[in-house]
Structures are given as structure tokens and as C-alpha cells.
């Protein structure tokens, strides 16, 4: 349950007054008890003495009947619990009842003993009884026996309870009423300002930082109000600083143009220091010189004329050097009195009195100095110093970014030049390879034709060595022919530049298998396939890709008939296609090497080939923006994977494997 301060105060006051009332009631009860007991003792002594006087004759005459009658009359008193009359020896005569069970018994209880040892009336409280006992004496003071009476304290208790109830009722009602009223007043007096403080806090929390409380109170609540106001003011300043920092940060990140960033920064500093002149210099020439990069509220030409002539760069000296050496903020309250100040007359002429210099960057990497001059003697407060540090940090970042930007632009320019040169070189190389291959074909066809003709026409007419030499020449010419054909194919991948079209990979596979039908039939191969997608690419090149990979699977088979599976899977925005076989497999260490041109793992006697097929495959896949790799182990077959773009349909061939990085 949520209780307000007022409710708590009321409960607290109620409790306090209840406690006070209880204590008061207890005190009153004890007082009343003492008084009532005293009165009761006095009263019972009077009653006992009176009764003793009235029964003297009966005791003296031993008239037990008469004694009983008188005691019975005495017991009409409702508070009287018992009466005992004994003889002088303490032997019971009558208790006032007809039964009189204790008659002739000696009373030996402590009180009876006490009574007999006393010559006056004695009283004692035992349990709920107030006992009184004393001698029965005649007019001549002669004692004939003892009278003992027991009075119930119930009546007295009732009186005490009545007194306590009256005290509790009276004191409690008044006390609680006063307490509740006071608590209500105090609660109201406290609750209102507390609610105002709570409301102000809510307003401040909601962003209304201009909210302020009336600080008219001199008590703790006044202190709280003052603290809330201070907190709001501090928050306002902080928020302002954060906004400034955010604006500066956005400006710094939005542009890499140093002058514009610094212009904005100096504007913020100017606002902070009431239109004071602000100058920022950066270290250049390996930290040997300062270069002016920003001016605010100062005549730039006049300043530069005073300090560096017409040059924007000046040697690192004076207060700027002192700032870099002091590694922090340098404050000079009176420029005219500081011996480190040069151009004092100029500064006086400009009306500048105090100086603040802040190191930009760090001690290990000083970037420059931010300088603020004020026209009045000024000691910067903690907020100003903090704000100056923040702005200085941003200025440093801006200078750093500017330098990085400058460096990156230079690097970009250099890279672009190299890329262009490389592209030109590649194009020339491809052109050369194509031209060389094409031009080599003509004489090679002549060599092949004539060596073949020589072998056919002179077969059996020459000696065995001659026939063998001719066979070698024919074979070499044929191999060169294949080599040149493959080289042509390879170079055409880069030079053909056909537009990509949407292709049915299933149809492409069918074409490739048709081309390889003789080899498939000869090897008894079994070719299976997944559901194949439609892809975007160069039809000729992709068909060539499939022919090469399936052809390799047929060629590098083991003793078992080849089992080839064309697989396909979708992964995000690309298709992963695969050609899996059960052939001789490839040692994983050669998984990269096999895609390089003219790289072969077997001799021509083992498996004929030019060493261009897989290089051609890689070039085709690269051109389609994909990747090719192999997973295999010797004797366990091989799976060639290649990827092709899937989601973004594009008819533009992939121009180059060299990516231009946008900066």
C-alpha cells in the first residue's frame, strides 16, 4: 500500500499519542491504584474495627449464634469475601456461616500469624483479596479474640479500570485529536512543497529543463528545492553542451573539409566566451611550424601580418609552443604582465587581456593549438574549461580527419592509377594472347597438316626411327593445337564480353552432357542431377564450365564406372552448384593450385591435358561474380563447387576482379 507523507505523519502522530496516552493511562492507573489501595486499607480497617466492636459481647459471652448473626449481617457488604473470628488463642469461633467448617481450628496461615503478632490492625493483599485483621477489644481494651476479614479487590479493580478508561478516554481522545490535527497541518505544510518538488522533478524529467522551484523556504525543503534548481541548471548546461557536442560531432562527421568544421567550432567557442577572438593553428612540417587554419572575431590579415608576414605558416614559438609544452590548457589572466607574451603592444592594441590556449590532440600526437582571447580579465570556470576541452577534442578530431582524408585521397588517386594501369596491362596481355594464339594457329595447322600427310604417305617406307620421329612430330603438333585452342578459349573469357542472359541451367547441363556423350558412353558413367535453377550468365561460358568439370570427372575416374551428380543448393542470394564424382580424388594441399593455369598434378601419359581447363573454369566463375573451390581426398572422389548470383538479376557481366573501394 502506498502511503503519503501526510498519512504517515498522521499514523506516526497517532502512534505517538497512543503510546503517550497508554503511558499516561498506566501512570494514572498506578496512581489511582495506590490511592484506591490506601483508601481501601483505611476503609477496611474502619469496617473491621467497627465489626470487632460490635461482636465483642458475643465473643466475650461465647455466643456463637449471635456472633454468626452479626457476622452474617456484616457480610451483607458485597465486597466482603470472608470473616473469621477467633478466640484469643487464634482458634476459630465463627466465619459467619451456619456451616462454619473451620470452627475450633487454629488459624495458622501467614496472615493470621501476622495478625496475632500485631497489636493493631494489619492489612495485606493476597491474590484478589485485601485482608485485614486485628484484635477484638472491649470498652476496657481487654482483648477477647481476633477478627479477620477478606475484601475482594474486584470492586477496586473495577474502580481502577474505570479510572484508567477515563484517563485513556480523556487523554487519548484529546491527545489523538490534537495529534491528528497537528499531523494534518504539518502534513499539509510539508506535502504541498514536496508535491511541488515532485512535479518539478517530473517536468525536468520530461525535458522541461527551464523549470525552477520557488526557493523561499529556509528549511530542508528549501535546500531540496535549491538542489533541484541547481540540478536543473546543471542539466540544462549539460544538455546544451551535449547538443553542442552533437552538432559539432555531426559537423565533424558530415564533412571532411577542415575549414568549414573549424568555422563552426569557433562559432561555438565564440558563443561560450562572449564574442572573444578565437584562433586555431595546426602543427605542420613535422611539428616545426604552426599553420593558421581558423580565425574568429579577429582581422586575419592584420594578425598574420603581425605574426608571420603574408605566410599562413609560422615557426612554432611563443605561447603556442608553451601550450604544447604544458600539455594542457594555458591560462594567462593578464597578457600584459606575462613575460612569455610577444607582440604585447599588438595585443594591447587589439584590446585583448586574457589568454586561453588548449592543446589539440595529445601529448604524443600534438595536432595544434586552440587559442581564445578575452577582452576582459577572465578566469575560466569548470564548465567553460570542460566545454573548451570538448570543443578542442572535436577540433583535434577534425584536424586528424582532415589529415586522414587528405592521405586517403592521395592513396585513392594512386590506387586508381595503378588499377587503370593494371587493367590496361591485362587487356594488352589478353589481346596479345588472343592474337598470338590466333596467329600461331595458321603455321601450326600447316605443320600438323604436313606432318600428318608425311606420316600417311611414307608409312612403311621409312625406317622405324624415322616413323617414330614423324609420330612424335604429329603428336607434338596435335598437342600444341589443343594447347592453343585452350589458350584461345581462356583468353576469350576476358575478351568476349557477351551480355548475360537468363539461362536454364538444366538445358545447359543437357547440352554439356550431349557434347560429352561419347566419353560418357565409353566410361559407362552415370550422371544424376538435382532440380537446377535458372541463372543469369554467359551461355557459352557456363556450358564450357559444365563440360570441363564433368569432363574432368570422366577423365580422372577410378576403376569403378564414374558416378557423377550435379547438385544445387540456395544460400541467401546465391546458388551453390556442385559436380561430385567418385574418381581418384585430389590431395587437399593442391586444392588451390589446380585452378592456376598450366598447373597439372599428373603427367600427360597418365591423364592427357593442357593444364588450362580448371583455370578456365575459375576465370568463367570469376567473371560471373562467383567462387569456385574443391573438396576432396585421394581415392574418395572430388566435389567441385561454384557459386552464381541468384537474387539480384543482373545482365551486366562482372567486369573485374579488382574492386574499386569507395572512400
Amino acid at each position, binding site marked *: 500500500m502506498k502511503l503519503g507523507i501526510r498519512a504517515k505523519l498522521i499514523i506516526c502522530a497517532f502512534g505517538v499519542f497512543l503510546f503517550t496516552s497508554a503511558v499516561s493511562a498506566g501512570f494514572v492507573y498506578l496512581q489511582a491504584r495506590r490511592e484506591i489501595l490506601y483508601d481501601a486499607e483505611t476503609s477496611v480497617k474502619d469496617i473491621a474495627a467497627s465489626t470487632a466492636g460490635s461482636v465483642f459481647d458475643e465473643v466475650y459471652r461465647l*455466643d*456463637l*449464634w449471635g456472633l*454468626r448473626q452479626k457476622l452474617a449481617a456484616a457480610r451483607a457488604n458485597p465486597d466482603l469475601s470472608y470473616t473469621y473470628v477467633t478466640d484469643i488463642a487464634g482458634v476459630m469461633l465463627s466465619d459467619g456461616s451456619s456451616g*462454619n467448617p473451620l*470452627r*475450633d481450628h487454629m488459624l495458622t496461615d501467614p496472615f493470621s500469624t501476622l495478625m496475632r503478632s500485631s497489636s493493631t490492625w494489619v492489612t495485606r493483599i493476597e491474590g484478589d483479596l485485601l485482608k485485614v485483621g486485628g484484635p477484638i477489644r472491649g470498652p476496657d481494651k481487654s482483648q477477647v479474640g481476633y477478627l479477620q476479614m477478606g475484601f475482594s479487590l474486584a470492586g477496586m479493580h473495577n474502580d481502577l479500570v474505570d479510572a484508567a478508561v477515563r484517563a485513556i478516554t480523556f487523554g487519548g481522545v484529546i491527545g489523538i485529536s490534537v495529534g491528528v490535527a497537528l499531523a494534518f497541518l504539518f502534513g499539509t505544510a510539508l506535502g504541498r512543497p514536496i508535491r511541488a518538488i515532485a512535479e518539478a522533478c517530473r517536468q525536468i524529467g520530461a525535458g522541461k529543463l527551464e523549470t525552477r522551484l520557488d526557493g523561499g523556504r529556509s528549511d530542508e525543503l528549501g535546500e531540496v528545492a535549491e538542489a533541484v534548481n541547481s540540478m536543473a541548471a546543471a542539466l540544462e548546461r549539460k544538455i546544451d553542451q551535449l547538443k553542442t557536442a552533437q552538432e559539432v560531432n555531426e559537423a565533424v562527421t558530415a564533412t571532411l573539409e577542415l575549414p568549414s568544421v573549424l568555422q563552426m567550432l569557433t562559432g561555438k567557442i565564440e558563443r561560450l566566451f562572449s564574442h572573444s577572438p578565437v584562433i586555431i593553428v595546426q602543427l605542420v612540417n613535422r611539428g616545426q611550424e604552426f599553420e593558421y587554419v581558423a580565425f574568429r572575431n579577429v582581422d586575419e590579415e592584420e594578425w598574420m601580418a603581425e605574426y608571420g608576414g603574408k605566410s599562413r605558416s609560422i615557426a612554432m614559438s611563443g605561447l603556442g609552443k608553451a601550450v604544447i609544452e604544458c600539455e594542457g590548457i594555458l591560462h594567462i589572466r593578464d597578457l600584459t604582465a606575462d613575460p612569455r607574451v610577444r607582440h604585447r603592444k599588438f595585443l594591447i592594441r587589439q584590446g585583448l587581456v586574457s589568454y586561453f590556449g588548449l592543446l589539440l590532440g595529445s601529448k604524443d600526437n600534438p595536432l595544434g593549438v586552440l587559442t581564445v582571447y578575452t577582452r576582459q580579465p577572465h578566469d575560466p570556470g569548470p564548465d567553460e574549461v570542460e566545454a573548451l576541452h570538448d570543443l578542442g577534442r572535436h577540433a583535434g578530431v577534425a584536424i586528424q580527419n582532415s589529415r586522414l582524408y587528405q592521405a586517403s585521397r592521395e592513396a585513392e588517386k594512386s590506387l586508381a592509377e595503378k588499377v587503370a594501369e593494371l587493367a590496361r596491362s591485362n587487356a594488352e596481355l589478353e589481346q596479345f594472347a588472343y592474337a598470338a594464339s590466333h596467329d600461331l594457329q595458321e603455321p601450326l595447322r600447316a605443320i600438323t597438316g604436313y606432318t600428318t600427310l608425311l606420316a600417311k604417305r611414307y608409312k612403311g617406307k621409312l625406317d622405324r626411327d624415322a616413323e617414330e620421329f614423324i609420330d612424335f612430330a604429329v603428336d607434338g603438333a596435335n598437342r600444341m593445337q589443343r594447347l592453343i585452342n585452350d589458350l584461345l578459349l581462356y583468353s576469350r573469357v576476358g575478351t568476349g564480353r557477351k551480355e548475360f542472359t537468363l539461362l536454364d541451367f538444366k538445358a545447359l547441363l543437357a547440352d554439356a552432357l550431349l557434347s560429352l556423350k561419347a566419353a560418357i558412353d565409353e566410361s559407362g558413367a552415370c550422371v544424376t542431377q538435382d532440380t537446377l535453377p535458372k541463372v543469369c550468365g554467359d551461355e557459352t561460358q557456363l556450358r564450357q564450365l559444365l563440360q570441363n568439370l564433368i569432363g574432368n570427372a570422366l577423365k580422372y575416374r577410378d576403376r569403378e564406372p564414374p558416378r557423377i551428380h550435379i547438385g544445387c543448393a540456395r544460400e541467401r542470394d546465391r546458388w551453390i552448384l556442385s559436380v561430385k564424382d567418385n574418381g581418384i580424388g585430389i590431395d587437399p594441399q593442391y586444392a588451390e593450385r589446380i585452378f592456376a593455369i598450366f598447373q597439372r598434378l599428373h603427367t600427360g601419359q597418365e591423364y592427357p591435358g593442357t593444364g588450362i581447363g580448371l583455370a578456365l573454369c575459375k576465370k568463367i566463375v570469376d567473371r560471373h561474380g562467383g567462387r569456385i573451390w574443391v573438396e576432396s581426398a585421394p581415392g574418395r572422389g572430388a566435389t567441385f563447387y561454384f557459386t552464381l548470383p541468384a537474387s539480384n538479376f543482373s545482365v551486366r557481366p562482372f567486369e573485374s576482379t579488382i574492386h574499386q573501394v569507395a572512400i
Partner: protein
Amino acid sequence: MPSRKARVWALWTWLCVISLQGSVWGDALRIGSIGYLPADEIRDFLPLARYLSEPLKTAGVEEVRVIVAGSISEMAGFMRSGKVDLYIDSVFPSMIVSELTGSRFLLRRWKRGIGEYRAVIFCKNDASISKLTDLRGKTVAFEEPFSSSGYFFPKLALLRAGLRPVPKRESSGGSVAAGDVDYVFSNADENTMAWVLRGRVNAGATDHQTFAKEARGHIKDLTILYESAPITRHLLSYRDGLSENLVGKIKQILLAMDKSASGKKALLEFHQTSKFDPVPLGFADIVSKSAPFLRQELELK
């Protein structure tokens, strides 16, 4: 300040005056009793009066009243003058009234289940008294002058034993004449017992039931010197001249009281009366034997 006795007498006189002023003797049956406290007596007798009033209407009795006398002589006067028709009391007063007025005994009254008792004279074991004659020169405590068991029959026993009981005189200084037996009235049986036990008197007289009750744990310390023959506890007498028919009717009603629930209830409220039955046959003998002594007593009084 008047004494208690004086106050009682004044009240009794006032009640008598009131009773006489409003009495219509002709059509009412009046039951008489002797007592110091008329109000208490009337309260005790009212249940019986109310019970009798209804059945006696057939006998011409319009109402039944209770008349309280302060002494035997006054009761005798009432009976003689016809102001009391029925008188219920213990044996000794009844016999005196009968002797004085010629009233006749009609029924015996049982109280608390007891119809008879015996008078006893007792003393302490260590009193060197073992028989009545040993009381010669001693002091005996009687209850009160009209007590049957506490005075009349014990005194009769002392006389028959050849002793001469005489009231103790204050001037005797405690000495008793040889051959005499001094007696004092204790006013209550419990006083009689206390006085004997504490040696204030040499012997005491009471009935055997009271003796057992009051002696309590001291009964072993006491010796009974004399025990009388059974004595009727209470008697109902009727005045001489009362209509025999009415007497018969009354007798019939009272004898039947303990047979009905309403009768039992009325009996119980009538000072714990158990029943009424005919006077024992031997009682006439007791009366005749006691007559001389009774006359002597009347002369004394």
C-alpha cells in the same frame, strides 16, 4: 438505641394490630405460630395456608390466615379466644398450650424427613461426670425456655434423676449449691456445644441430631449422659371448639398432601416439611407422664 428484642416486640405488636384491624374471624381459618420475627413466620407458613385455602372453600372457609404470637401465653390466649384455629409447634409449647387451652393434638409434622428425635444431655469426657447424678453441684446449659429437646425433656430427666435444676444466679459467683444443678440458657444449640467444649458449663442439652452436627470432630471427646425416648418433632393442634367436620376435612387434606405434587411442593416450601401423619400412639403416654412437670413449669413461668 432499643435492643433487638424490643424492636422485635414492637414489630410483632404492630403486625398484631394490623392483623386484628383487618381480620374477619368468622369465615377464615387461622393458623398460628410463635416467633420473634412475624414476617419470617408468615413467609414460612404462607405456602401451607395457600394450599389449604382452596380445598377448604367447600367447607365454608373463605380464606386461611397466619397468626403469629410472640409467646406461648399469647398463643394460648389466641386459641382460647378462637383467634387461632390451628397451632403448629414443637412438643413442649404444644403441650403447654394444650394444657392451658384444652387444644387437642391432630397430626404429627415431619421436618426434613424426621418425625421424631431424642433429647440428650452431654458433657466432656474429662469432666469426671458419668451419670446424671454427677451433675449435682454442676452447671448445665439449656437452649431456651420453650425448647423441647433443649430444655423441657432434659430438665424433666434431671428432675426424675432426683436433681433440682435451678436457674443460675449471677450473684452466685459461679458456685452451685450442693444438691442443685444450676442451669443457664445458651440461646442456641451451637452455643451449648461451644460452652461445653470450652468448659464454660459442665454439661449441655440438645437433641441427638444437633448434638452430632455440632460436635463434629469433638464427638469422641464427649459423653452422652442421658438420651430420652423418641419425641415427636412437631405437632399440629387445633383449638377446642373447632368444628369436627372442619377438623376432619383439614386432617384429610393434610394427610394427603405428600401424595400429590402440588402438596409436596407446598410441604417443601413450608419450612421443608416432609409430611403430616397421625400422632403416634405412645405420645399420649408421654403427655400424661409429663403433665405434672408441665404444670410445675407453668407455675414457674
